[in-house]
C-alpha cells in the first residue's frame, strides 16, 4: 500500500501547518474572548459569552486534529514532544475541561454563576498560557535518546517559555478583542477596542522580546537570520509585521470597519508563525529530527491523505456555513433566566 516514490511529506507539512494555524486563529479568538470575559463589566458578560457559544466546540475540534495529525504524520515528534511538555499539556487539558463546562454551567447554575465566570476566565487564561509555553519549550528543544524524550518533566519551565506563554495570552486577547468588535456594538464594542489596544501593545513588546531572545539563545537560528543573503530575503518579515501592527492599532481605533482589527490580528499571527517556521525549518523536533525523519510510513500517510483531501474541504464548507448561520451582532438577553 502507498506509493513510496511520491514524497507526501511536503503535502502533509502544508496541511499540518494550515491546520495548526487554523486552530490558533479559531480557538485563539474564543480563548481570547474567554480571557477578556473576566475583565468585562458584569452586565456585559452574557453578551461576551454569547459571542462564542455556538462555535467554541467546533474550534476545539481543530486542536484534536492538530494532535492526531501530528500523531499520524509525524509520530516520532508526537512521541517525543508530548511527554516533554507533560505538565503544560496537563494544565491545558484541565483548563479546557473547566472552561468548556463553564459554558454550560454558567447559564444553568445562576446561583453560582460568578464562580463559573471566574473559572471560565481562569481556564481560558491557563490553557492559553500552557499553549504558549509549549511553543517556547518546543523552540528551545528537548533532550532525546533512542527515539524518546529523556529530560525532566519540568524542563519545559524556563523564563523563555514563561515569556511565550504570556505573549500568547496577549495575542489571543487581541484576537478575542477583534472578534468582540465584530460581534458586539455600542459601549461593549468600545470597551473591546480599548482592551484590544492594551493587548496589541503587549503583543508588540512580546514579539520584539522573543525576536531578540531567540537568536541570542540559539546560534543556529542567529546564523540563519543574520547571514547577509538571508538578511535581505527575510527583511520583509519584520517590516511587514511592523506595518500590520500599525494597521491593527488604527483598526482598533475604528478605522476600516468592524472586521479590520480581527483581520490585522490574524496578520500579526501569520507573520509570527512565518517567523517560527523560517527559524526551525525543516526540523520538527528542533536539534534532532527533520520532518522527513519523524514522518510515519508512506502507506500511513497515503491512507490518511486520501480521506483528508476529500473531507477537509467538506469540513471547511460546513464550518463556514455554521459561522454564516450565526453571523451578525450578538446580545446578552438571550432569554435565559
Amino acid at each position: 500500500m502507498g506509493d513510496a516514490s511520491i514524497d507526501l511529506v511536503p503535502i502533509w507539512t502544508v496541511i499540518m501547518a494550515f491546520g495548526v494555524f487554523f486552530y490558533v486563529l479559531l480557538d485563539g479568538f474564543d480563548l481570547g474572548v474567554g480571557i477578556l470575559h473576566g475583565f468585562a463589566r458584569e452586565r456585559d458578560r452574557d453578551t461576551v459569552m454569547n459571542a462564542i457559544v455556538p462555535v467554541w466546540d467546533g474550534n476545539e475540534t481543530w486542536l484534536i486534529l492538530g494532535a492526531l495529525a501530528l500523531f499520524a504524520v509525524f509520530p516520532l515528534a508526537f512521541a517525543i514532544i508530548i511527554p516533554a511538555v507533560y505538565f503544560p499539556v496537563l494544565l491545558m487539558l484541565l483548563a479546557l475541561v473547566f472552561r468548556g463546562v463553564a459554558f454550560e454551567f454558567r447559564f444553568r447554575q445562576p446561583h453560582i454563576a460568578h464562580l463559573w465566570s471566574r473559572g471560565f476566565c481562569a481556564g481560558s487564561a491557563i490553557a492559553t498560557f500552557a499553549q504558549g509555553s509549549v511553543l517556547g519549550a518546543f523552540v528551545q528543544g528537548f533532550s532525546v535518546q533512542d527515539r524518546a524524550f529523556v529530560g525532566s518533566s519540568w524542563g519545559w519551565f524556563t523564563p523563555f517559555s514563561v515569556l511565550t506563554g504570556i505573549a500568547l495570552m496577549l495575542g489571543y486577547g487581541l484576537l478575542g478583542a477583534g472578534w468582540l468588535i465584530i460581534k458586539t456594538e455600542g459601549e461593549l464594542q468600545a470597551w473591546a477596542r480599548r482592551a484590544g489596544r492594551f493587548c496589541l501593545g503587549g503583543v508588540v513588546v512580546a514579539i520584539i522580546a522573543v525576536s531578540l531572545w531567540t537568536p541570542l539563545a540559539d546560534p543556529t537560528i542567529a546564523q540563519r537570520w543574520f547571514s547577509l543573503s538571508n538578511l535581505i530575503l527575510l527583511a520583509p518579515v519584520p517590516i511587514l509585521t511592523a506595518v500590520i501592527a500599525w494597521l491593527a492599532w488604527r483598526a482598533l481605533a475604528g478605522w476600516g470597519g468592524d472586521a479590520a482589527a480581527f483581520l490585522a490580528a490574524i496578520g500579526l499571527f501569520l507573520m509570527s508563525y512565518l517567523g517560527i517556521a523560517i527559524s526551525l525549518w525543516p526540523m520538527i523536533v528542533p536539534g534532532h529530527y527533520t520532518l522527513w525523519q519523524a514522518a510515519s510510513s508512506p502507506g500511513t500517510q497515503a491512507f490518511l491523505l486520501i480521506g483528508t483531501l476529500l473531507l477537509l474541504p467538506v469540513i471547511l464548507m460546513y464550518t463556514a456555513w455554521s459561522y454564516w448561520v450565526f453571523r451578525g451582532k450578538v446580545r446578552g438577553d438571550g432569554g435565559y433566566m
Partner: protein
Amino acid sequence: MTLDPLILSRLQWAWVIGWHILLPAFTVGMASYIAVLEGLHFFSRNEVWLRISLFWTRIFAVAFGMGVVTGIVMPFQFGTNWSRFSDATANVLSPMLAYEDLMAFFLEASFLGVLLFGRRLVPRWAHFLSACMVALGTLMSSFWILAANSWMQTPAGYEVRDGRFFPVDWLAIVFNPSFPYRLAHNVTAFYITTGFVVLGVGATLVRRGTSIVEAQRMMLMALGFLAVFVPLQIFLGDLQGLNTREHQPAKLAAIEGRWQTAAPAPLTLFGIPNPAEQRMDDAIEIPWLGSLILTHSLDGRVQGLSDFPADQRPPVAPVFFAFRLMVAIGLAMAGIVALGWWLRRRGRLFETDWFLHLCQWSAPLGFVAVLAGWTVTEVGRQPWTVYGALRTANSVSPSLTGPDVVCSLLAYMIVYSAMYPAGYSVIARMVRQGCTGNEAPYPAIAARHPNTSFATQAE
C-alpha cells in the same frame, strides 16, 4: 512502595477513559433519539414531539459539552503517558483516530451549534438535517474509535519491523477480527443505556406529575425500543464471546474463571479467584453449560489459564467479576422490560408506582454495564496493549517519574470530581423542570430575529 509510573499511568488512563465513556454512552444514543424526535415533528408537525426533543436537546447539550472536553484529554494521553506505544503503533493506529476526528467530531460540533441554537435561523429541513448529521457523527465516531480499539485487541494486517508496526493491508486493519462484533455490541450498549435513561426520566416525570403527555410517550418509546434491543444485545454479546474465545483465549479463560482446560467445561456462576493455587475457591458450577454457551456443543473444549505462560495471563478477579456484573445487569434489564410490557398490556403501566420507582432506579444501569464491559475487555487484554504483540510495560513514556504521574492523576481526579457532580446536578435540575417547551437558553442573535418564545412560533 515505590511510585511506579506504569501502574499510575494505567490508573490515570482508567480514570480519564472511565469518566469520558459515560458521556458517549449517553450521547450516541441520545443523538439518534433526538434525530428521530425531530423527524417525527418535522413530518407530523405535532408539538408534543417538539417539546420532548427540546427537553432532551438541552440535556444533550450539557452531556455533549462535557464529552467534548473530556474527549480532548484522550488523544493527548497517548502522547503524554504512552509515548512508546505511540511511536510503535502510530503507523497503523493513528489514521483511524484521525479519521474519527475528520469524519465525526467536525460533523458533530458544527451541526450541534445549529441544532441547539439555530432553530430560528435556518429552514426547518436544514434544522432536521443538522439533527441527523449530529447523530451520524456520533455513529462515525463509534465506528473509528472501536476500529482502533479492536485492532489493539485483535491486531491484523500489519508487519513488525524494528519493534514498530507497519501497515500492510488497511482493510484487514480496520475490519480486524473482533471489530464487527465489538462495534455492534458497543453501539447497542450505548443505545440501551440511553433507552434506560429515557425510561427512567419518563418515569420520574410521570411520578412528579409534570409534562405527563410527553413523559408517557417517552416511556412507551423507550419500552418499545428496549423490547427489541435488549434481547438483540444478549445475542450480540454471545457472538462477541465466541469471537473472544477464538482470538483472545486467555481473556476468555479469565472471564470464565477457568484455570484448567476442560471438555466438557462447566459454567462457573460464581467463585473467588485464587491465582496462587490457580483455581476458583467456593465455585458454584453448572455442568456442561460452559461448553454449551461457549462452543454451542455439550462437550466442547474450553481452554484454561494454566495453558498460558504466567507472564501472558490477564488478572482474573476484575475480569471475572466485571463480566458477571455486566451479564447480571443485562438479565435484569430484560426482566424490567418484560415487566413493563406486562403492565402495559394490563393498562397499568403509568399507575404502578413501584414499577415507576424501579424504572427511576434502573436509569443508571446502562452506564454501570458499559463500565463493566469496558473493564472486561481492557483488563482482559492485559498484559498487552497490542494483544500478543506489544506489552503494556513497554508502552509507557520513559521520561515519566512516579511523582509526575501522581501529580497529574491527582489533578485529573480533583477536576473530574468537581465537574461530574456539577454536571449531574445541572441535568437533574433540567429533568425536574420537565418539558417546558423552551429552547436552549442562549444565544440570541440580535436584529435579524425577534426573540419570541419558540414553541409558539414554530406552528
